[in-house]
């Protein structure tokens, strides 16, 4: 005990927790509102709920503290130990599934769904721009992407007759005013079923959008590439699947909720995949090295042997050195914890659970990003028995980068 105490004391002083080669700060709440009956949601299409500049981290979420579902954002300077008070982004009608990206000059672009339409506005820790409606028909499931040269694009699922289709637009910020270009339809083939839940990334060579497509009477993941953001390649299949050997097994196993991340011309996609359907969803990924024009083979991200239990809520980010990292949650130890795996040269790493995001209670719904220094920022929903739900934050780095 005499030997351990100084170590524990030291750990407490530096405020770090170790997790199998990663070093994480202790968890802090994004919002200090911890109240029974208030529920946080981090569930945007593409799971981009946290973004970071060199100096500031921003988190966007939805909660019901006001009595209705509204969207909020909070900021934390790198040097600060707490987040700013939440700023309400949405107005009046119920609002859901916010997503955000970093632009420039500490400005973040936030998009969300409100009253069945897609809205966007610019925010920083001091000011909030005017909201701008992006869609032209009832819409949902918005996601954003930005590039280092300050291109911003949005993609969402917009009603088109009986079905919904993916649309995109380019967003421009000029003197705190946002404007949007005419909508672009990446796949203009006649709809026979819905196109849902897009993921979006901007590489050096162009833009790639991926989505859930139901035209073949089961869900497949498609993607399309555009060099100019206006003209898209014909869609291609992202997920691999075997045709069912028996029609009893349906037209194909399920895939859902694709997320994309990019670094230079690397684009990483991750999603939930039920190809081993008896064990529920597994986390799969595929990587493009040509900016999103083509993707490589599908790769199982989680540890082999974990296919017998379901994994949920995958998010992906790439650090400045090109390290692709996927986060998700599963309950391999009875209650859900957050898990990470990163892509090594020849395989995905062993799963590791960040210490602040594991242990007692339920730790679910991760969202991740990397800043310019290679620091990962992680937010997630935490629920302890008989305790109000919390939205928590930690940051960390692979030990090799210490």
């Amino acid at each position, binding site marked *: 005990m005499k030997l351990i105490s100084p170590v524990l004391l030291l750990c407490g002083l530096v405020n770090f927790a170790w997790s199998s080669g990663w070093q994480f700060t202790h968890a802090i709440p994004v919002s200090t509102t911890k109240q029974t*009956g208030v529920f946080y949601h981090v569930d945007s299409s593409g799971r981009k709920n946290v973004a970071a500049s060199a100096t500031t981290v921003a988190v966007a979420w939805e909660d019901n503290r006001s009595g209705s*579902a509204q969207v909020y954002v909070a900021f934390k300077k790198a040097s600060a130990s707490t987040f700013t008070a939440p700023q309400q982004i949405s107005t009046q009608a119920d609002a859901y599934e916010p997503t955000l990206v970093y632009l420039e000059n500490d400005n973040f672009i936030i998009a969300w769904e409100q009253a069945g339409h897609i809205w966007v506005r610019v925010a920083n820790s001091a000011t909030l721009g005017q909201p701008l409606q992006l869609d032209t028909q009832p819409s949902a499931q918005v996601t954003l992407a930005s590039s280092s040269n300050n291109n911003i694009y949005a993609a969402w699922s917009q009603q088109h007759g009986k079905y919904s289709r993916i649309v995109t637009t380019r967003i421009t910020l000029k003197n705190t005013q946002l404007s949007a270009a005419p909508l672009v339809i990446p796949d203009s083939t006649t709809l026979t079923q819905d196109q*849902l839940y897009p993921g979006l990334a901007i590489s050096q060579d162009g833009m790639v959008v991926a989505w859930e497509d139901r035209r073949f*009477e*089961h*869900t497949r993941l498609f993607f399309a590439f555009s060099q100019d953001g206006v003209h898209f390649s014909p869609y291609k299949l992202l997920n691999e699947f075997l045709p069912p050997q028996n029609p009893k*097994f349906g*037209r194909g196993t*399920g895939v*859902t909720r694709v997320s994309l991340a990019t670094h230079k011309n690397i684009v990483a996609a991750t999603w939930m995949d039920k190809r081993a359907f008896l064990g529920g969803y597994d986390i799969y990924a595929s990587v493009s090295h040509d900016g999103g024009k083509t993707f490589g083979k599908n790769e199982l991200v989680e540890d082999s042997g974990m296919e017998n239990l379901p994994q949920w809520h995958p998010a992906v980010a790439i650090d400045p050195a090109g390290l692709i990292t996927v986060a998700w949650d599963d309950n391999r130890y009875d209650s859900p914890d957050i898990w990470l795996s990163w892509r090594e040269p020849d395989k995905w790493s062993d799963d590791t659970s960040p210490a602040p995001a594991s242990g007692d209670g339920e730790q679910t719904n991760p969202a991740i990003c990397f800043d310019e220094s290679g620091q990962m920022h992680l937010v997630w929903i935490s629920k302890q028995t008989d305790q109000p739900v919390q939205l928590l934050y930690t940051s960390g780095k692979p030990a090799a980068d210490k």
Partner: protein
Amino acid sequence: MTRSTISFSQLRKIQYAKLGFVLLVIFISTALYAEPPDNYPFSKYDTGLKQAQREHKKLFVYFGRFGCGFCDMTNKQTFSDKALRDRFMQHYILVYADAESGNRINLPSGERITEMELGARLNVYATPVFVYLEPDGTMIYKAPGFKTVKEFIELDDYVYNNHYKSQTLSEYSATRK
């Protein structure tokens, strides 16, 4: 009596019309693929939960998935049985949830979740899954996979007549043999 004759082009038109009809039937049947069964009053989870509490009835929650073959098989081979349908309608509030969908539902706690999240919380991961719940949402029994009419009738006796309060399903099944 005059005998009507059909030209080759007319014959081809008729053949095209027949082909069109067949394609329409295929389209309609595929468009309905793996949806909840016809003629059952399935509702959303939150609506069903309120109704169950109001009417003091247990819930029967059918978790399906778009493109799920065993869901379609259950619809066609099992839920088409009229006696079973009558039994389900008398005994339960019927709920359908798409285990892949983002349809929003509101829980009694005030929390808003999606049908996919409901599945995650009830540990539903291979569809179809049929979940029997108390009127307050407490789990009674979870039955995964395709079920025959006979299997559903046995499950119904087990749940509706409260045998689950004192016996496991296998214990109860043994008493029926």
